[in-house]
């Protein structure tokens, strides 16, 4: 009965499923910092090979890794979805995605067709195989607002990927009678708004309330916002393909929706019942402020680079917020569930002070990078701070995994099989 109605109450997936993807994502963050350090001169040219390499390291290497890791964890827990053989699937996805992104970076730099083809096969395999399993399972359940949003976000990822494959085909010389520039705009829009923004928004409908004990988002708002954004994206795609100028007005409506979401979320966070002001909540505030500024500057059509930076700040800040909450909880939760009575507490897994230092460095990195758009010499300092920030996150995730393994080997355990 419960399986049929999607009400599986299975426990969380094995911890390594999530930690591996989070660690890969944060290591790509380190790579991204080096790329910004050396290649920041051409950032304003979105078609430049180094800019394309930077953008895809950020969106695929960092963001997709974190978001898939979060989905592996949240789908069983928040949606009651059972993913079969999660370890096998996550290992396949992690490594094919990782090698695919590395090869894609070289493909952009070298411009060689064979590299584009290999990278596309690997990335498509990683993302299609995971989204296929997730979408298939999500289609079986009775939806909450979050699970419906996750389904929409995953559908957007599929559209983004299909468009990417068409773009790569055109790039390697296959003649497809479509406008490359228009397709690229649709690819960006589905990737940024449909995949990244809708996923964060949908997950937030449950986790903001759960982590900070805030008032609930209104049911109608939570139900219709992801659907509305996705519907607008479909209209945008149709208008772009047909070559209508109205397309930019559709994007402006999406920006207004994102600004409203940011304001509502800040209001919820302000009304939280818990007294905590830890790093994760500060990351949420920075993330929501960045989203608001992104929407405002995008609406006013001000500098693409500045608006892109604010969107990046939004997505990265929420990823840091989630990591600093989820990683220590999972270590404690899994060890506790296995009966280890000396399982480290959350604050022993990652100290709140460490997370707060990371928050300040992350914020400083964003501010410095923003200033560097005007004074490019500061980019060296901004990318150095970004390097420190991602290194701290990588170390925190690796350290948490180490503590988990150490306790498994050396910890004292209740005998759960008493006869």
């Amino acid at each position: 009965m419960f399986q049929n109605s999607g009400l599986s109450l299975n426990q969380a997936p094995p911890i390594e499923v999530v930690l591996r993807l989070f660690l890969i994502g944060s290591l790509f963050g380190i790579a991204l910092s080096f790329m910004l350090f050396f290649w920041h001169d051409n950032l304003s040219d979105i078609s430049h090979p180094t800019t394309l390499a930077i953008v895809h390291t950020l969106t695929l290497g960092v963001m997709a890794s974190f978001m898939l890791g979060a989905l592996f964890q949240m789908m069983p827990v928040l949606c009651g979805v059972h993913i079969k053989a999660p370890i096998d699937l996550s290992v396949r996805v992690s490594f094919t995605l990782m090698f695919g992104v590395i090869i894609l970076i070289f493909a952009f730099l070298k411009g060689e067709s064979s590299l584009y083809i290999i990278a596309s096969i690997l990335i498509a395999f990683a993302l299609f195989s995971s989204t296929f399993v997730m979408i298939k399972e999500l289609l079986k359940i009775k939806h909450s607002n979050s699970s419906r949003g996750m389904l929409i976000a995953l559908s957007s990822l599929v559209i983004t990927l299909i468009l990417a494959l068409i773009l790569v085909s055109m790039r390697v010389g296959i003649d497809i009678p479509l406008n490359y520039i228009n397709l690229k705009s649709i690819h960006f829009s589905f990737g940024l708004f449909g995949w990244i923004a809708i996923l964060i928004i949908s997950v937030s409908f449950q986790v903001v309330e759960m982590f900070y004990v805030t008032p609930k988002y209104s049911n109608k708002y939570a139900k219709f916002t992801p659907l509305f954004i996705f519907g607008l994206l479909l209209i945008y795609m149709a208008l772009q393909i047909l070559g209508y100028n109205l397309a930019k007005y559709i994007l402006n409506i999406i920006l207004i929706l994102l600004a409203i979401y940011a304001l509502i979320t800040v209001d919820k966070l302000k009304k939280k019942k818990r007294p905590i002001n830890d790093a994760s909540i500060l990351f949420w505030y920075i993330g929501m402020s960045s989203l608001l500024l992104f929407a405002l500057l995008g609406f006013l059509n001000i500098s693409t680079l500045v608006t892109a930076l604010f969107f990046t700040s939004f997505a990265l800040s929420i990823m840091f917020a989630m990591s600093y909450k989820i990683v220590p909880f999972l270590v404690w939760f899994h060890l506790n569930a296995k009966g280890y009575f000396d399982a480290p507490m959350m604050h022993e897994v990652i100290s709140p002070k460490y997370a707060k230092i990371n928050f300040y460095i992350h914020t400083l990195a964003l501010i410095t990078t923003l200033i560097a758009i005007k004074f490019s010499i500061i980019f060296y300092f901004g990318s150095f701070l970004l390097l420190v920030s991602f290194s701290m996150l990588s170390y925190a995730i690796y350290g948490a995994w180490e503590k988990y393994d150490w306790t498994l080997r050396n910890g004292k355990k209740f005998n759960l099989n008493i006869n």
Partner: protein
Amino acid sequence: MTISNYLTNEHRECDNIFAQAEQEVANGDFKKAEESFLKFADETLLHFKKEEEQFFPMFEELTGSSDGPTMVMKHEHEQVRGLMGKMAEAIESQNRDAYLSLAESMMILLQQHNMKEEQMLYAMADRVTDANRANELISKMEELTL
């Protein structure tokens, strides 16, 4: 009142007392914090008792399943009870950092648990019980004490 409303209100009430105790520990007022924590523990344990002695058996009878979701919920109740003991020790020894760290785990554990109950078990119970059966269950739960 529906079963869902009744039990969900109890979750919210426990959240409020929990947040109050956490605030008092954060302020270093352990005398008040102890009172609030004890209130939170009493309310939560009574809520668990209502579920385990009245709600879950009815749910199992209606759904014909005693080894599925209710078993998972009971296991999570045990986890919460264990954590509660550690929090009581931290408050007794006035260990602010330990309490706040345990509170963090407790909050996520409880919220995750509450969400499953509210979205799955309570919602399903509302769908399969009529008003009379729901009122009868709520009356029985009201009679229980710790």
